[in-house]
């Protein structure tokens, strides 16, 4: 017993020792400091799985320009200080690209990223104004911002209503914390510009009780409902809609809506429900098919095969196909060894990249780190998602004016340091 304890302690000591810095080796390394145990667990396993599967596929084909890909996954439990620890540790091991996939941690790591000049990937989380590449030089929130998504939803409604939103009633249903509050500003601006009637209906955390929100919505009887909720909150919303006699086809969900939620609502009951998304869902995508054939059929998958049908799997695949492509361009253009500066140039030369139709085409420029922010609206027809629009980016001027306003505030506070 004593010996065991001694070996355990020495193990602990050793593992603490192993945090010492190491030289940057030959492989291209990407750090995923993820929340695998607390709040974001509804997406992180699928995203980590897809990233590692795709890395496996890339490595089978000889890596990125001859350099093998290594993905380091570590849990931070959605706690800012553990995210910072993960960043600080891996930074010293020579990793230059970081992904936290958590808004609190991304916000906590961002000041250090900006100071150290490393690459922060923060697709779909963190500060939305970070798509302004002139201010946030090192941050790449490739994908749509919540402002952009909301604007695209309004654009879709506009298309549906024959080009005019005059007199339309749109309800914005949201969970009452920063994630849900984010689109309010842009929606107000658009309501003024387009002349639709906007109703804001918040419901409190943790989102299990939306009864009063839906009573309000029933009273107002809106034409459309745009919903900023996460996974199971959509299921609760669907129940409230049935209870209040509101057709589910009026409901447009934010991108955080997956197959599990459909299953919980019931495939038939969800018929007509819409969601905005920046990736094409389903495992019939060419890239997913290739992974299934080359990785899973050979028994090298990094998780349960059934997760590959999840839209969040495709979301992860989209993020990492962009990241790997960016790194490939960086090596191709500026050569090995990589530096954050070269990676930045690589990312910024992504042009109309869509990973074989997996996602909205992405064009990153030094000004726009969001890659265009395109999404599309899909409708659930009982068995699959049917795209209702092309990849669209509505009201770019309004979206960018919000972005610029916010990023200018950040730039100002940085300048005053």
């Amino acid at each position, binding site marked *: 017993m004593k010996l065991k304890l001694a070996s355990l302690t020495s*193990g*602990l000591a*050793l*593992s*603490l020792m*192993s*945090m*010492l*810095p190491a030289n940057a080796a030959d492989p291209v390394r990407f750090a995923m400091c993820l929340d*695998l*145990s607390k709040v974001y*667990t509804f997406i992180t*396993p699928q995203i*980590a799985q897809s990233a590692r599967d795709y890395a496996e596929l890339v490595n089978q084909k000889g890596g990125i320009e001859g350099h093998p890909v290594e993905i380091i*996954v*570590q*849990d931070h*439990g959605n*706690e*800012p*200080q*553990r995210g*910072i*620890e993960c960043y*600080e*540790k891996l930074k*010293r091991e020579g990793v230059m690209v970081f992904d936290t996939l958590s*808004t*609190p941690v991304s*916000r*906590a790591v*961002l*000041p*250090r990223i900006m*100071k150290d000049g490393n690459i922060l990937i923060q697709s779909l989380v963190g*500060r*939305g*104004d970070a798509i302004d590449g002139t201010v946030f030089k090192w941050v790449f929130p490739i994908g749509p911002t919540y402002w952009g998504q909301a604007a695209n939803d309004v654009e879709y409604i506009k298309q549906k209503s024959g080009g005019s939103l005059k007199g339309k009633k749109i309800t914005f249903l949201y969970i*009452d*914390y*920063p994630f849900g*509050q*984010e689109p*309010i*500003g842009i929606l107000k601006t658009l309501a003024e510009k387009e002349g639709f009637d906007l109703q804001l209906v918040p419901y409190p955390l943790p989102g299990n009780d939306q009864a009063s929100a839906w009573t309000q919505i029933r009273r107002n009887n809106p034409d459309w409902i745009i919903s900023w909720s996460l996974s199971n909150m959509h299921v609760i919303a669907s129940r409230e809609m049935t209870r209040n006699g509101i057709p589910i086809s009026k409901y447009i969900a934010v991108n955080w809506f997956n197959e599990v939620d459909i299953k919980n609502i019931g495939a038939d009951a969800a018929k007509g429900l819409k969601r905005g998304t920046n990736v094409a869902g389903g495992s019939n995508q060419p890239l997913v098919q290739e992974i299934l054939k080359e990785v899973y059929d050979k028994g090298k998958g990094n*998780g349960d095969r059934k997760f590959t049908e999840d839209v969040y799997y495709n979301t992860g695949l989209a993020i990492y196909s962009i990241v790997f492509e960016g790194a490939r361009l960086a090596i191709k253009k500026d050569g090995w060894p990589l530096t954050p500066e070269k990676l930045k140039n690589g990312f910024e030369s992504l042009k109309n990249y869509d990973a074989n139709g997996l996602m909205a085409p992405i064009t990153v420029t030094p000004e726009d780190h969001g890659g265009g922010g395109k999404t599309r609206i899909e409708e659930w027809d009982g068995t699959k998602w049917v795209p209702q629009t092309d990849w669209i980016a509505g009201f770019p001027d309004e979206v960018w004016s919000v972005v610029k306003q*916010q990023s200018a*505030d*950040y730039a100002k*506070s*940085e300048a*005053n*340091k």
Partner: protein
Amino acid sequence: MFFRQAGIFHINYAADRALFPIPADRWMVGTLLALAATAPLFMNTLYLSSYMLPWLVWTAGALGLNLVLGWAGQFHLGYAAVMGIGAYAAVHGVRHGIPWEIAVILGGLTASVIGIGFAFAALRVKGLYLALSTLALQFVMDWTISHVPAISGGTQATLQAPDIRLLGWPVTSDAGLYYVALVWCLLVTTFMLNLRRTALGRALVAVREKDYAAAVIGVNSFYYKLVAFATSSFIAGVTGAILVNTFYHAVTPEQFSVDVSIQALAMVIVGGLGSIIGSYFGAGFILLMPGAMNTFISWAAAQFGLSLGIETLAHLPQALYGALIIGFLLVEPLGLGKIYNNVRDYLLVWPFGYVKK
């Protein structure tokens, strides 16, 4: 043998009231202080900036909570909110051109004023009811911060913290920030050490043991509870401000959410109520153990050739960490500080253990 008491004579009041009458304690404290002061010379920057620094700041925070929970015996479930008030006040202060030193004190005072205002209402009830009403403070603060853009810094709810300028000198290096944290932690520790032997400290302990018994012997329990809340809130406010300035560099509501309050509470309870060294242990345990467990499990898995899924690797440390908390509290309900004291008591008379019996 190690903690020799031979030759210690209480011949005057000063010697009798010394903080560390036993030479071994003095040697230990001195060595630790010397190590802490020279840490930037021999410690690698990762340990310094990611483990030592947050540990010191959180220790100061835990000591502040220990004042109200361990000394005055009043529950406080909204401690993180009070830290948040201090952090926001200080950051706004610096952004409006107030010098950093004054802004930090201002943060402490703001936290103190709000803390005391809240305590006026909350202290009308006791025990678990008080715990719940302090929890309300947490939720009121969370709500206010996320609904008043002027406080939270707009829809992004992140406010960049300006760099520290100490008497006009910018402090940005890892070592510099570490020293700021160290000095604050030492200040709070010294205050708490001395609190034990002041009238205030004794009054607080009297209130903790039985507040109406304290009232009978002439201690105004309501007044002392308020003092405890005010002092602890001041420490919390300054600690929050220092945490943001030295570690996070940006202030967001999640850094001071209800989870963090529970963590702070856990630091004090695991460390030991009313124990100063316990606060050091508790903060270290709660703050650093999850990360250390994580590394340890990954290392062990690699060592024994186990290929665990990433989710198992994330959850296993949590389970082990939980088990450790339960284990320690089963062994010694009074916390890690008491375990340390047990060891010290044993060594006080070792090798003549029979002396104790």
